[in-house]
Structure formats: structure tokens, C-alpha cells
């Protein structure tokens, strides 16, 4: 394989543009490289065509005639010189042609023998070179086969290693995903358990508070004022009441129970009820329902009630007219209220 540098040097060499010191080096390299010699021959033929591509310029017609006359003169002079020498031939020239012929024949025999010898040597050298070339070719083929086999084996090993790496990576990924999933499940279980425990703790805390309150109330009932937790009030008719009704209410903060007694309230239509409201100062603007009730033909009623919400204090009672069954917050007219 000829590289670009050698191609450039061959081109410059053929065109005569290679410096003298590089010419010797290039010719030395060319003697050892058959491919380079062939390239030089091809490039030399190509360079000659530069001349062919030039426009045709015919030399002056008389030039040929002058040239032929010149060589005729040369040959004539040589012939004349040869003729002049024949005027006085020396005596030894009578036997000289025979001596020359004999010498020439001897020389021919020697040359023929030398030629045969050289031909034999050339044949042998050619045979040796051919054998060497064949041997090198065989060795080259063997080396190439071995290299290909080794390359194939390495490729197979590489492929196997790659497969193993892929399998290991997949196993690792599966294990990682399993560990992650297990961890997530455990976290969920712990969170659920934590939430259950928090609910239980809240329930226990509420229960504990209630027990403490009951204990405090019991302690107060035993050791304190027995009526200290009872709130009582008298309710008078408001300006919206159609009658001059009155009522009295009591509520025990300790037990969360109370009683209301009403007189002279006006009967209500069937779709209406009276509803009792208790006002805790700790819950401003949010009265707690004490329940609904109706009145008899005299306008009287007695209601025992227990609000759904635990009250810490009660400072006011009131009664309003609401729709049947009661409401969550007072909407109708207040007909009775404590002071």
C-alpha cells in the first residue's frame, strides 16, 4: 500500500520537481518497492501526455531537410575517412581479419556459455523467489486464519461477558425493586398503626378528661356546694310573643341535664315546634339546642333535656318558634328569654 507521501514524491520525481538530495533517497526506496515502481511508470506515462495535449506546432519544413543533410554529411565524412585509410594498407592487415574473426568466434562461445550460466542462475533465483513467495503466502494465510480464529473467540467471550453483565444488572434491578416495594409496604403498615394509635390516644385522652371532670364533679358534690353546678333562670315573654307566657329553667353543669317548665304559651300549628336554646359564654354566637317541645291546651309544658354538647357554663335560656323537629341554629322568633 502506497501512502500519500510516497504518491507525492513519485509525482514530483516523474515531473522532475524533486530536489536532488531527495531523488537519491526516493530511487533507493523505489528499488525495494515493486508497487512504487509500477506507480512511477504509470505517472511517467501520464506526464508524457501533457505534451500530447499541447496544440500542434509543426516545425519549419526546411528543418528536416537540413537535418538529413547533416547526417548525410556526417556519414559521408566517415566514409571518406574510411576510404582514405585504404590507400596504403599495412601488411599485417592481410591476416588481421582472420584473427579478428577467430577472436570474435571465441568471444561468442564465451558469451554463449556465460549466457547459459546466467540464464540457469536466473531460473534458479526465480524459482527460489517463487518458493519463498509461496511460503510467505502460506505463512500469511496461516497467520490470518489464526488471527481470525482468535478474534472470533475473543468476540464470543466478549458477547458472553456482556450477557452476564446484562443478567446481573437485571437481577440487581429486580432485587432493588423488591426491597423498595417491601420498604413501602412497611412504611404504610407503620403509618396505619401510627394513625390507629393516635386515634386510640385521642379517644383515651377524651375519656380521661371526662373521667377527670366526673371525678372533679363528684369531688365537688361530696366536698363542695351541692348546688354550685346548677344554673337557674326565669324566662319572660318577649315582644314577639303573642301571649304573656312565662317559664323557668334549670341546668346542672355537672350532669349535663336540665328541666324547663312553661306556662301560657300559645299553641302552635302542626308544622311548628318550640325549641329551647342554652347560651354558653365560651361559645359566643352559637347557642346549643336543648330540644323541641309542644304545649298542652293551657299552654303549659314540662321538658327534661340533655344537650348533645358538654357545656362548661350557661348564662342564658331562650325559646324560639321553629319548624317541626327543630333546627341547628335559631331561625324563628324568640318568644321567651331569660335576663
Amino acid at each position, binding site marked *: 500500500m502506497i501512502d500519500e507521501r510516497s504518491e507525492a514524491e513519485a509525482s514530483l520525481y516523474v515531473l*522532475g520537481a*524533486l530536489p536532488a538530495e531527495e531523488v537519491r533517497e526516493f530511487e533507493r526506496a523505489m528499488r525495494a518497492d515493486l508497487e512504487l515502481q509500477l506507480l512511477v*511508470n504509470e505517472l511517467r506515462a501520464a506526464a508524457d501526455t501533457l*505534451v*500530447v495535449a499541447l496544440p500542434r*506546432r509543426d516545425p519549419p519544413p526546411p528543418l*528536416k531537410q537540413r537535418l538529413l543533410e547533416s547526417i548525410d554529411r556526417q556519414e559521408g565524412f566517415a566514409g571518406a575517412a574510411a576510404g582514405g585509410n585504404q590507400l596504403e594498407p599495412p601488411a599485417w592487415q592481410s591476416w588481421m581479419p582472420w584473427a579478428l574473426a577467430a577472436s570474435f568466434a571465441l568471444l561468442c562461445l564465451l558469451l554463449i556459455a556465460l549466457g547459459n550460466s546466467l540464464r540457469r542462475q536466473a531460473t534458479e533465483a526465480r524459482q527460489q523467489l517463487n518458493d519463498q513467495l509461496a511460503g510467505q503466502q502460506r505463512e500469511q494465510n496461516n497467520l490470518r486464519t489464526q488471527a481470525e480464529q482468535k478474534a472470533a473467540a475473543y468476540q464470543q467471550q466478549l458477547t458472553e461477558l456482556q450477557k452476564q453483565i446484562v443478567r446481573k444488572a437485571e437481577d440487581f434491578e429486580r432485587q432493588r425493586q423488591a426491597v423498595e416495594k417491601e420498604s413501602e409496604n412497611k412504611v404504610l403498615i407503620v403509618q396505619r398503626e401510627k394513625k390507629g394509635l393516635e386515634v386510640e390516644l385521642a379517644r383515651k385522652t377524651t375519656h380521661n378528661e371526662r373521667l377527670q371532670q366526673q371525678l372533679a364533679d363528684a369531688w365537688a358534690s361530696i366536698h363542695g356546694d351541692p348546688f354550685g353546678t346548677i344554673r337557674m333562670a326565669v324566662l319572660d315573654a318577649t315582644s314577639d310573643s303573642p301571649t304573656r307566657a312565662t317559664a323557668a329553667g334549670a341546668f346542672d353543669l355537672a350532669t349535663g341535664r336540665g328541666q324547663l317548665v312553661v306556662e301560657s304559651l300559645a299553641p302552635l300549628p302542626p308544622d311548628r315546634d318550640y325549641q329551647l336554646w342554652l347560651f354558653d359564654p365560651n361559645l359566643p354566637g352559637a347557642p346549643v339546642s336543648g330540644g323541641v317541645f309542644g304545649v298542652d291546651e293551657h299552654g303549659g309544658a314540662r321538658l327534661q333535656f340533655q344537650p348533645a354538647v358538654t357545656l362548661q357554663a350557661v348564662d342564658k335560656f331562650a325559646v324560639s318558634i321553629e319548624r317541626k323537629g327543630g333546627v341547628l341554629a335559631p331561625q324563628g322568633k324568640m318568644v321567651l328569654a331569660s335576663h
Partner: protein
Amino acid sequence: MASVINHTAWIPCSLLPPPADPRPVRPFNADSVNEPLTTIDEAQLVQRIAQRDRQAFSQLYDRYAGALYGTALRIVNDPDEASDILRAVFLQIWNQPGAYDPWLGRPFHWALTLTRNLAIDRLRSLKRRYRFLEEETGERDHSASEWAAGPSEFIDQKKVASIRAAVRTLPLEQRQAMEMAFFGGMTQNEIAETLNQPLGTIKARIRRGMLELRDGLKGAV
């Protein structure tokens, strides 16, 4: 029929791979003495010249004179100088036909080398420099008669057209560098200096140009 020797002097031809277009030189045959001169190849003409055959010399002149004169004229750019060079070349062929070495190529290559060397020496002695003329091998269209080779010349007309087409396809800067070397006898350094280009650029241009020319000529010669 022209002949091309594709072997070199350093190795026996039997060890070389066969050339792409093998046309070996026919050995001289005594019978060819009676053959018409217009049909025998150039190597045989040179052999006959060595035997002082005036007709063979005349025949070789008819085949080569146009191309060699054009080459000399291209280099020295002077018709009288070119005529002197052509005369000196053919006298050398007549006087020293044994200097022709068939291993180094066909006789035309030998004659062309003689012509180039003489013309370049003359150019240097005149202290002149080769002048690249683009139109000579460039884009200008020449008439068919300007390019036509005569029937007795060493290469036929169809091949001349193919060769010229191959040369014309070369880029101008490549052709210029190649011609400055081939016709101007300038070294790579002188070309680089004259064209004010790096040496590597000149080398690359010449290399590409020569390879393209070689490839373009395949089948043409």
C-alpha cells in the same frame, strides 16, 4: 502501433505483475527490414537507426517532430530556439541510438526527456523563466486541425482528443503546478516560491493532479 514499456530497469520483468495494457516491445527481426516503415513500431525504428538506416530516421522524425517541437516551443517560447533544440535532439538520436534503454519506457519518452532537458537548459542559459500559459492546455477551444495528429505520428487522433479531455478536466492550479515542473524544470520549492504558496500545498496539488490525470487517461492511451 505504439509500444509502452511498463517495467523498470531494476527488476526482471518476469517478477512484475502484468501491466494493465501490456504491449511489449517486439524484438528486432531481420525480416522486418523488408517491412514498410509506416507499420513497424518505434522501438524497431530506433534499432534500424542504430544500423544507420536513413529512412527509419526520417520516419521517426515524421512521427515525433510535431510533439517535440511543440514541447520545445512551449518551454523556450521562441521558434528559432525550438528549431535548434529539435535539431540537436534528432542529431543525438542519430549519433547515440544505443543510449535508448527500453526498460525506461518507449522511445518517445526517451526523445521527450532529451527535448525537455535541452530546452530547460537553454531556458536557464537565457536566464528566463518558464511562463505558464493557461490557454495552451486550458479552456480555450482549439480547432480540430490544431489538435489533429497526422497519420504517421505516434498516436492517433481519437486518443489525442481523449488525452486532451483528460488534461482539461484538471483544475487550473494543479495543471499550473504540474506544467511549471514538467515544462519549466522547476523544483517543488521554486514552484512554491513563485506561486507564493506553502510547499505542502504544491506537493498536494501535484500529487492530486498526477493521480487524476493517470486515472483519467485509463483507456485513452
